[in-house]
């Protein structure tokens, strides 16, 4: 095996709804992620990007047909027992969901929820856990970790909640973080803040990331490579700059074109407005 952190080969997923005919959600997807690499998955709803994230975490619903191999740190995830998987999920691979309001338990203080991850995976004392929670909250950019740790999710704003979920995800210093549209519901200045937090974590710990988004602009300054997905297939794969500068596939060209249309200077480029920077 090569030194890839994760190696996905020939992964296909069929959803088989009761009474319905099987739906092909992933079609022969192969992808490798190196240590410390940020891979952006670009695709729209129905492209299979969330299915890919769930497949790597082995969180696909029952009645799903999965074929292909997923190797992670040279171990075969597909043949692992539920017990073995529990030792990997949250510890070696963690997932940042799209909606932090759903990901957090509303009746437990967020400090306790971060602490839970350590209780599940690490054999450390209560005081150490408490200390770690403070450090983690600082790491994701909070100035007052004490107050945040004591807060309930509803007392925090969307951006704060998302940072708490990130703190949870990096608690055990996983080697791979999967983020499924983690910034798309936040407003742009919060998006920038989250991306900065993630870049810092990556520099510090060399964490690899699989960053799923439908917006090329989010991936532009962040991902090393971009994988473009469409209808369950990988249609294009390459260096970020190459994909954004010279998209080959028609679908990528369309997405990149739309992203340019939706950037702020687009109306100015169209000559509607003059650009004063």
């Amino acid at each position, binding site marked *: 095996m090569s030194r890839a952190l994760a190696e996905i080969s020939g992964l296909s997923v069929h959803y088989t709804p009761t009474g319905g005919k099987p739906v092909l959600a992933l079609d022969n997807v192969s992808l490798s992620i190196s240590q410390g690499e940020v891979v952006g998955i670009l695709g*729209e*709803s*129905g492209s299979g990007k969330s299915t890919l994230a769930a497949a790597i975490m082995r969180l696909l619903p029952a009645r799903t047909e999965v074929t292909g191999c997923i190797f992670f740190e040279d171990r075969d995830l597909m043949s692992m027992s539920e017990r073995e998987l529990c030792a990997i999920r949250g510890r070696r691979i963690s997932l940042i969901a799209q909606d932090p309001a759903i990901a957090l338990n509303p009746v437990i203080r967020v400090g306790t929820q971060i602490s839970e991850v350590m209780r599940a995976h690490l054999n450390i004392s209560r005081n150490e856990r408490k200390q770690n929670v403070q450090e983690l909250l600082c790491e994701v950019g909070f100035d007052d970790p004490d107050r945040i740790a004591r807060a309930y999710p509803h*007392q925090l*704003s*969307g*951006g704060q909640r998302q940072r708490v979920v990130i703190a949870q995800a990096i608690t055990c210093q996983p080697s791979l973080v999967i983020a499924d549209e983690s910034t798309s*519901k*936040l*407003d*742009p*200045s*919060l*998006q*920038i803040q989250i991306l900065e937090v993630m870049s810092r974590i990556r520099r510090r710990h060399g964490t690899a990331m699989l960053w799923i988004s*439908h*917006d*090329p*602009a*989010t991936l*532009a*300054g*962040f991902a090393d490579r971009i994988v473009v997905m469409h209808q369950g297939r990988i249609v294009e794969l390459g260096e*970020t*700059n190459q994909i*954004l*500068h010279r998209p080959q596939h028609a679908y990528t060209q*369309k*997405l*990149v074109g*739309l*992203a*340019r*249309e*939706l*950037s*702020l*200077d*687009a*109306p*100015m480029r169209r000559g*509607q*407005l*003059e*650009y*004063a920077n």
Partner: protein
Amino acid sequence: MRRCAEASWNMPTEGHANAVALRVCGLSKRYWVRDKGLWRRSALNAACDVSFDIPAGRTLGLVGSSGSGKSTVARCVTRLERPDAGEIWLGETDIARLKAAEIRPFRSAIQMIFQDPVTSMNPRMSAAEVIEEPLLIQGRGTREDRRANCAELMEKVQLSAGWLDRRITEFSGGQRQRIAIARALTLRPKVLVLDEALSGLDISTQAEVAELLQELQAAYSLTYLFISHDLPLVARMADWIAVMSAGKIVEQGPVREIISNPKHPETQKLVGAAAHFGAALAKAQGASA
């Protein structure tokens, strides 16, 4: 119609005396929140002295970061909430003080499209049931009329009338948002309030629905209050932008002014954040700006 104190600050009506479709004056709404324990409540000024005019057939973009009070304004203007103070002139009527029963006839003139097309519709209904519900509530039309109306609206939002009897859950997010637009148009309103109506959609779907909204606006001279945190999107849709921060409108002006010469720090922050992603994209594309 009453004049607003700050009328000169508002969007120009191009000389038509009666051309203002929606005029909001001094709108305020305060919520009581429990942030200091279970029994102590403090006031949160979600909207504070908000005033704007929207000329008929035009679009006002309301931008601001989350928590700035945009949705409170939307909910007050559509009278899903009762404002504490201020006036909401819908044509010749101030609907701010009307009681629930009095407001019903005016609901046909102002309709809202919500952000999430999944939670804003009853999953057990078919597309036809969703679209005709406003007519049922208003007690208008016969069964056949309503059916014909639904079919016409489906075509208007570029969906097939043959899909009317499908369950709402069988449609994709973009299709559902089109159905939400059809539902909002059922009562032939003059004003549409769009609260983050395009934010949950993929960028290609977003572009299509944005185009549809612009076509509908031109065809039926609709007036839009377009609310979003996405400044580039608002810049594309609106004629005039108002920026909200902490419940107040801190700056408003023509799109060009706001983007090229933001004055208030909040506006500068929004323009800066939007420019950040534009610059990142431009840099990656090698077209250094």
